[in-house]
């Protein structure tokens, strides 16, 4: 089949609606979509309260999340979306160009979060917004819109008030007809509890600065990790700047490492330990114990339960488009220059800590006493450079004791000692201490 040489052939590269509605939504979890909507609310709150800093820069701003089997809703009292913003770009899929000029330290950067979240959640979208001066409503039936043949993709705005609106400032998004798999998760009691835990942790910095979030009627509390600090120990802090991004790396001891590091030792708090990555106050990686944050690379060993109690935080602050986060805001780009620079410091501090946990084995009792005596200080209180400091002590020889006992008796003794889901090793250790305390001391 010969073709005429003068004829140019084209391969179509246009986007399809299905790509945004059905495909892009597969790359993100329901909880991350909800956080995307919450990010918009935070940005709206930031815009409303202005560039002011200070410890309560979000005071007076709120977001209310509610859901049941048949709807999902988020309402904020932030700056709202203006008619011009809506007409030009707020509802476009992606910004015309990644906006590197803006200096705003916002969370929204890619122009995809809100739309992706709406598509992920359900079929009927009702969005109402007001800047305090102007207001509009956007109603969207996603299934109908998907079938529309209009070559220009657009959503009709209704109830448009261009000046002097009486609608209160803020934005509300209500999704009805949630997709079956979404409804299924929204009604799982584990989901609400998990979402609460995640928001309290990942928005801890933001909540602690006055942003109020309520989830199905429960006001959420900021969860800010804490370092132990005393004359014997203190977290390390290092500040750096790469281009427009301010980097702050902090690491230290948050809790005494466990006595029992055997394989079967349960540690319900284990997900708290490890590295946290924070971009413009939003936690994007939490409790990481992988190569992403340096574990198992170069001089840093791979994660082991003996490091439980280690806490590291790396904060990036700067223009949204300059930060190392990915569009889901649930991960970072490990090749990003700012992140590469931070990683060097992170590994240095991690290695100091892991060495310490080996050293302390010979004097675990003294070490633990010093660690537990140190008061807890919220990580947000540390900003000036300082060296990571860990307790020192002379070495003692230790020997491993091993013995066999019937499972039943081990369980019964664990219960009698009030131990929570203990491993056999922990029961053995406590039994030894119990005897030592009474017969030797």
């Amino acid at each position, binding site marked *: 089949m010969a073709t005429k040489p003068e004829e140019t052939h084209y391969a179509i590269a246009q986007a399809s609606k299905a790509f945004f509605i059905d495909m892009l939504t597969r790359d993100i979890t329901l909880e991350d979509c909800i956080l995307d909507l919450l990010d918009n609310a935070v940005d709206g709150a930031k815009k409303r309260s202005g560039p002011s800093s200070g410890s309560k820069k979000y005071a007076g701003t709120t977001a209310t999340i509610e859901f049941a089997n048949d709807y999902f809703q988020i309402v904020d009292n932030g700056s709202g979306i203006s008619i011009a913003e809506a007409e030009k770009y707020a509802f476009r899929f992606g910004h015309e160009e990644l906006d590197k000029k803006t200096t705003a330290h916002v969370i929204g950067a890619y122009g995809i979060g809100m739309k992706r979240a709406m598509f992920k959640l359900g079929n009927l979208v009702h969005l109402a917004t007001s800047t305090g001066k102007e207001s509009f409503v956007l109603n969207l039936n996603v299934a109908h819109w998907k079938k529309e043949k209009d070559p220009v993709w657009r959503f009709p705005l209704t109830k448009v008030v261009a000046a002097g609106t009486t609608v209160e400032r803020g934005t509300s998004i209500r999704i009805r007809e949630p997709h079956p798999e979404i409804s299924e998760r929204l009604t799982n*009691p*584990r989901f609400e*509890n998990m979402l609460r835990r995640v928001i309290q942790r990942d928005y801890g910095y933001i909540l602690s600065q006055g942003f109020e979030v309520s989830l199905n009627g429960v006001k959420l509390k900021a969860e800010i990790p804490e370092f132990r600090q005393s004359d014997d120990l203190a977290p390390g802090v290092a500040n750096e700047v790469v281009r427009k991004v301010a980097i702050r790396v902090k690491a230290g001891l948050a809790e005494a490492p466990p006595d029992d590091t055997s394989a079967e030792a349960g540690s319900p708090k284990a997900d708290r330990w490890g590295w946290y990555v924070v971009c413009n106050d939003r936690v994007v990686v939490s409790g990481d114990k992988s190569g992403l944050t340096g574990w198992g690379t170069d001089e840093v060993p791979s994660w082991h339960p003996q490091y439980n109690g280690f806490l590291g935080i790396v904060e990036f602050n700067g223009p949204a488009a300059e930060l190392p986060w990915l569009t889901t805001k649930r991960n970072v780009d490990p090749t990003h220059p700012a992140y590469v620079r931070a990683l060097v410091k992170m590994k240095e501090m991690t290695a100091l800590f892991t060495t310490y946990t080996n050293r302390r084995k010979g004097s675990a009792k003294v070490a633990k006493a010093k660690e537990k005596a140190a008061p807890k200080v919220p990580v947000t209180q540390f900003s000036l450079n300082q060296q990571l400091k860990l307790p020192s002590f002379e070495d003692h020889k230790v020997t491993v004791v091993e013995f066999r006992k019937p499972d039943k008796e081990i369980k*019964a003794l664990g219960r009698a000692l*009030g131990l929570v889901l203990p491993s056999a090793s*922990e029961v053995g250790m406590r039994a030894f201490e119990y005897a030592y305390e009474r017969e030797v001391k």
Partner: protein
Amino acid sequence: MDEYSFEKIDYSIRPAKCVERRLIGQTLSYLAAVFPIKNYRYVGFGSLWFVDFVLFHRWLQIEKMISIEQAAEIGQMPKRFNFNKPLRCIKVLAGTARQCLPTALRGKQKTIAWLDYDGNLESALSGDLSVTLPAMSDGNFLLISTNAHNGQLKNKKRNDEAVSEVEYLETIAPDLVPANASERVTKKEFPGLASEILTNALIARTKELGKDLEYVPIWTFVYQDGAPMITVGGAFLSAASRAQFASLRLFERFDFLSSDSTPVNIALPVVTLREKLYLDALMPANPPPALGRLKFEMEQTSLDAFIRFYNYIPTFGELAW
């Protein structure tokens, strides 16, 4: 051995437990209009008395019954449990619930299972559930009873540090503990909290089976014959069965049921046999009799409880052989 409610008492004379069994039996006989209950199998912990077995056989005509008995496994009294079987159709399986449940729940036969523990919430949430839930299918019923004394939350330690009540609960029931739990670990509130956690576990873990099945709560009882106890129970239903279930309007019919995990307290009035017979003769009472017109003094709450449960309150008497 559990420290909270190992009461070696005759299980047949616990009045609140007795009322609870009858309330459950009553509900199931009503459910028989839609679900062929008499062809079901009943799996329970019959102990030496088999009280629930006798009741469900008489009221519901169930003929396939399995009792799981751990004491037999220990080899203490293998003959005694079989000797005490009040009905020929009861089969005693020897072993822990964890060991016996897979056998007891095998096959496609519809089941009513009652895991009637006297241990704490931690044991109720334990491995038994992970062998029971996968065996549940459309139209099955499951009940779980457990001790609900808040003492089970105290003096917990891990890595030499005190573990708070809520932390402990979150360890044994990850992401199933409600936000207001810290206000509900009191002696008075813990039964309600434990019911909610257990119900959450059943709802969540049923969804996580990935079947077209939902756990629908029916019963949430709090009672106290000695130690405070709870029983939560419900049905595993497909979408089609949920519609049939709804058509029974069960929750309008019986005020002792709970469509969420709000507990119904089986607090029975202490009345003498003479008083009971007198009050019975005034029933059904609509409107309820005025306190002042009764022939003896009575608290309003006691009278209300009597009116609510009179059809189910047992009479105990002394027999001389």
